[in-house]
């Protein structure tokens, strides 16, 4: 029997497994995909110091380390249900059932859909889908594409598509609808974009520091926003244009876009059609937490963390005995934060499994917690503003209601 079962072989799950194995726990990591690494696999971006973050390499380092420590990694296995039984958890997979005293959910995140008429046509995919096709499978999503949805994630991935020789005609906003909300509002999108201005080699965005302090300057910038867009890494970003409709009979043939006011209202008669054969929809990420819900874990809604998040404390424990969470299931942050959180979760699990009076593990746990805080503070990209506030709120909810 395994001391712990970890669901998700991404940065959080793998580093949790490494932490457990270092304390001689027998663990298995389960993942639906055919290769371990999770969403690390697709990642490829330049750090502020100019070095490349290559997710495939980072994933390989973790996988090798885990395997060397005797961690079992099962790929292509789907978990469809978990339930509390006796002193632990029963994990139902498409292959077999496993019982374990400790269960870690490191299921990551999924992409928020941004519905656009015509989006079911073949050739329309989430931007993360295009990322995996391009960087992992090394297959182009198409010849010429457009990105609908302008945010930190889509800007980074659009650059990856371009890097691989993909032709992206530009990035536009999604239409304003009850699901896309602020993602269709130029003013709100501009504010969120300014948070990555330090990464973008664009004079316009480098003014970001000033712009983000003065509302009137943002308004001015949007009012006089260039018709051809503002280029970031050579890709036109159209903050005053939104997608109206994706056209095509059997697959994507073109996209109709229109101009919008600085508040996102459609300007009638401004429609134009752009010929493309693929469309990437970028609605941002939300924590993938169904298994925690099935387990009966309490949830809280935190816009700062990207959505509904299972309640947990800083040591990655949920209020349910033996159930832990780590990585993007706890809130949308970078892979580096996820990896550090996974290490904390693994040490938490080890500490409670061993239950020794030895204080060495406590020291490791404290260091690992410090590491998470440090990485969070130094993050080059923050997916959500006020991430610290969100984390603090979660901690106090756990303390007040569950400890």
């Amino acid at each position, binding site marked *: 029997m395994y001391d712990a079962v970890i669901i998700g072989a991404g940065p959080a799950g793998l580093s949790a497994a490494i932490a457990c194995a270092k304390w001689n726990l027998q663990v298995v990591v389960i993942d639906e995909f055919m290769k371990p690494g999770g969403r690390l696999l697709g990642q*490829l971006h330049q750090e502020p110091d100019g070095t490349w973050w*290559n997710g495939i390499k980072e994933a390989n380092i973790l996988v090798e380390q885990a395997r060397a420590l005797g961690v079992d990694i099962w790929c292509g296995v789907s978990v469809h249900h978990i339930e509390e039984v006796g002193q632990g958890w029963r994990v139902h997979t498409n292959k077999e059932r496993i019982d374990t005293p400790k269960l870690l959910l490191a299921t990551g995140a999924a992409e928020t859909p941004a519905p656009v008429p015509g989006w079911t046509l*073949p050739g329309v995919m989430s931007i*993360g889908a295009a990322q995996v096709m391009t960087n992992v*499978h090394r297959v*182009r999503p198409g010849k010429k594409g457009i990105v609908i949805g302008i945010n930190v994630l889509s800007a980074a991935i659009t650059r990856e598509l371009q890097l691989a020789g993909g032709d992206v005609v530009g990035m536009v906003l999604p239409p304003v609808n009850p699901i896309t909300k602020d993602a269709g509002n130029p003013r709100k999108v501009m504010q969120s974009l300014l948070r990555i201005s330090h990464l973008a080699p664009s004079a316009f965005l480098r003014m970001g520091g000033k712009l983000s302090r003065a509302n009137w300057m943002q308004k001015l910038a949007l009012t006089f926003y260039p018709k051809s867009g503002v280029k970031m890494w050579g890709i036109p970003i159209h903050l005053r244009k939104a997608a109206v409709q994706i056209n095509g009979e059997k697959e994507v043939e073109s996209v109709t876009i229109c101009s919008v006011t600085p508040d996102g209202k459609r300007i009638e008669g401004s429609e134009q059609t752009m010929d493309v054969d693929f469309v990437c929809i970028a609605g941002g990420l939300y924590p993938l937490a169904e298994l925690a819900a099935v387990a009966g874990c309490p949830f809280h809604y935190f816009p700062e963390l990207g959505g509904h998040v299972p309640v947990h404390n800083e040591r990655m424990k949920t209020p349910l005995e033996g159930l832990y969470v780590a990585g993007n299931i706890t809130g949308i942050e970078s892979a580096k934060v996820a990896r550090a959180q996974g290490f904390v979760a693994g040490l938490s699990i080890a500490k409670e499994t061993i239950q020794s009076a030895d204080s060495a593990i406590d020291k490791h746990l404290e260091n690992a917690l410090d590491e998470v805080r440090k990485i969070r503070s130094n993050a080059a990209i923050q997916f959500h503003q006020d991430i610290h506030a969100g984390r603090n709120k979660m901690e106090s909810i756990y303390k007040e209601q569950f400890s």
Partner: protein
Amino acid sequence: MNNRRILHHPVLGTMPERNAVHFTFDGKKYKGFEGETIAAALLASGVRTLRVHEEKETPRGIYCNIGHCFECRVTVNGQPGVRSCLTEINDGMVIESGKRQPTPLKRKEIARHV
């Protein structure tokens, strides 16, 4: 080799040599490579439509590519509902696209038989 595959990448480097696999999709022969998904092998072969909507018969392809949306489900060696974005392509695989299904309980269909 077609230009849908990214053999040389400025940062990730040159794609390592992989063994070819042969499979069929709706009876037609295709070539893919070991270690890639059914969805990737088909996309690289120019196939984007993986099924049609069971009722409306409108075309569907991959959407999320992480196994979450189920838009890419196909029948593999007789087993229906397989997510092509998660499943590795194997030599000799027989893959069928999702087809339109009968809707005998639709009001229109019932009226025809009454």
